[in-house]
């Protein structure tokens, strides 16, 4: 009895050793970069983590195909290194000697990648399944490009400035024209000779601060009345 058990056990282990080895058929290499992802909060990779990994792969296979009855014992790990990297293979639950085709495993993992990642607190870059390429998510693009909005703001400011300056220029020109026509009219009447009294043109004296001296005010009193 003991001999038979030992024989069965050795057959199983030899079989599993043959099923899971580097570059075996339907085997995948996994590489984790825990320290890079988590820094000081990094956990150590031990047997418990391996158990979780097996559980996740079994879960993935079950989720992918409802007919699947993959057990944790169907997932075989081997060649675990310090890096942390290892090879794994999924055996068929009904027959322990064959492995599930690689395409199925790949499809299953692709479907549930983010569940697997979050179980280990890692990302696509730090939990790598070599040979399984990830579908990249497109970058978020807003509906109106941001630069168009900023451009609109800048352009409206500029146009407002130009309109303001042009309009004020036209107004200034109109005022100047009005002043120069007034001056021309006065000149035509021949009344403007810019006489200067003490360096101040009389015109400004009249316009600005001229006070009529009350003593000399009444013109009609220049001449004594007859």
């Amino acid at each position, binding site marked *: 009895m003991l001999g038979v058990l030992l024989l069965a056990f050795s057959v199983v282990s030899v079989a599993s050793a043959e099923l899971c080895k580097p570059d075996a058929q339907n085997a995948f290499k996994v590489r984790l970069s825990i320290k890079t992802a988590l820094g000081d909060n990094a956990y150590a990779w031990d047997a418990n983590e391996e158990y979780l990994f097996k559980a996740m792969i079994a879960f993935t296979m079950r989720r992918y195909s409802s007919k699947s009855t993959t057990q944790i014992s169907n997932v075989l790990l081997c060649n675990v290194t310090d890096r942390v*990297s290892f090879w794994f293979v999924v055996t068929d639950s009904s027959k322990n000697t064959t492995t599930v085709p690689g395409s199925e495993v790949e499809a299953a993992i692709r479907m549930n990648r983010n569940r697997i990642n979050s179980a280990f607190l890692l990302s696509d870059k730090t939990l790598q399944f070599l040979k399984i390429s990830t579908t990249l998510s497109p970058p978020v693009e807003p509906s109106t490009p941001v630069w168009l909005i900023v451009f609109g703001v*800048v*352009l409206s400011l500029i146009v407002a400035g130009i309109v303001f300056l042009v309009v004020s220029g036209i107004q200034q020109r109109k005022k100047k024209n009005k002043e120069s026509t007034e001056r021309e009219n006065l000149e035509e009447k021949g009344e403007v000779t810019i006489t200067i009294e003490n360096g101040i043109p009389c015109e400004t004296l009249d316009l600005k601060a001229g006070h009529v001296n009350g003593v000399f005010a009444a013109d009609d009193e220049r001449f004594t009345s007859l």
Partner: protein
Amino acid sequence: MDVPPEVPKEDGRPKWDNKFQYILSCIGFAVGLGNVWRFPYLCQIHGGGIPLLHLELALGQCLRKGSINAWHTISPYLGGVGVASLMVSILVSLYYNTILTWVMWYFINSFQEPLPWSICPLNENRTGLNEECYESTAVNYFWYRKTLNITPDVTDSGTLQWWLILCLAACWAIVYLCTIRGIETTGKAIYVTAIFPYLVLTIFLIHGLSLPGATEGLVYLFTPNLNILQNPRVWLDAATQIFFSLSLAFGGLIAFSSYNPSKNDCEKDAVTVAIVNSITSLYASIPVFSVLGFKALTGYWDCLDRNIISVINEYDLPEQSITRQNYTDWITFLNSSNPEKLAGLKLKSCDLQEFLDQSVSGSGLAFIVFTQAIILMPGSQAWAILFFVMLFSLGLSSMFGNIEGVFTPLLEVKVISKSIPKELLSGIICLASFLFALCFTLGSGSYWIDIFDSYAGSLPLLVIAFFEVIGVAYVYKIKRFSKDMKWMTGRKLNLYWQITWKFISPLLLLIVFVAFVTLQIQKKPTYAAWNPKYEHFPVKEQKVYPPWVQAICVLLAALPCIFIPLVALIHLIKRMRRSKDPSFVPPEIFSCQEFNSNFSHPPQK
């Protein structure tokens, strides 16, 4: 009758609000994009620079006219010098504002999170990154594809890029807004555009010095690279850079100083502007090189890290067992045990010096290298916005000088000044320039800008400057000019200026001109094209200009210079015809002092 005291002249010419505005405008014109992105060891030889600057400022101040009329007054045979200056100003304005268009495009894109030049877009079937972007870098892709949409060849014009047209329109609108009434409006705008860059440079200085790798960058800046200095082309570039750096021979400085009161110390102004220009170049180089050092160090670390990951993955070593410090030890150890396995990894050799040498000059510095460095800094949006607003201000204040060099002479042409108001003239100039500059928004636009920069913005300046110095020193004669200078500044003209104007400057200019032409003829004119289909992509493909493009290059260089002999010839013919007329009276000898004192007496009654 008493002689009334001197009333200030009322010749209707606009004038600066104050001296500071004038100095700031000259500094803003001289300090431009080149001060930031051309390396300082190329720019600081001032044997030829200051005397010409002094000459132009004195000339404008004395004659109080734009470049065309000013040179016509000096001697009618030299009127062509003014026309040549006008042409050069026009050509340079066209492409300089297109560079500002690129700056504006980057500015309005800096508000996006994350910065659009930091990530590669996906390719069509979303399996990986865009190929062109992946093979070069995201920064290169954004510059060459998203901004320029560059064609692989200068003959392949491509299409007009609508986003660049929008930005070009905005840039010319800004230029119009600021130059609408000549110096009345630029004088106000210059306070912002000339001072703001210094503020930003200071902020970048403080931040840049705090970055890792800053010391490496500064050491690189201050150690002269003897190999580069042995190349005569470098010295030639330095000499021509002076003219572009101080904005000589554009006619803009003459225009600026023509709005000055006559009795102004132009010698002090010239020295001030030249010194500030040099100091700005040196001051700008410190933050630039700190940031470049930071970028080089980060690139070096990235290179090391990638190698380390390859080695760790290959040998299945624990994470973080190989650090940057013990990398070389590990490599020697692994090489000694199993050299073939290590060689199979094809590790790139990481050399910090190589990364530092990658720092280019010119537009590549701002749009490729610096933008890459900005991505690596925390708070990159703010740094990007600051940086591009600074570049825009620098370029805009130089554009003011360029436009003044076109505006002032045109305004003095009698036909124009009577019929057209100032606002309309500046509008016409800006609109016409915008329409011409649309060529630069084509796919091949940046190749054409390089052509304009190398040919229109270099050789004609040397020729114009040469004739300026010869004209004043030998046609107008130094003795007359010294008397004018004495009247303007109150001091006798220093012997240094007399010697440089008479002998040293013309000689230097002649040597540089001959060297330039010789070097140009010797080598085949080539350009570097961005061709994604090139086998060594992302290295640029060296192509030769086709003959018709070479003809355009020659035309660009020759067109401004042609006006000098042309106008002299026209005047000679006119003179010969007039001398046959017996009633011809030869024109009076012009003198700056008499010219200005005509205005200093009030109208006699």
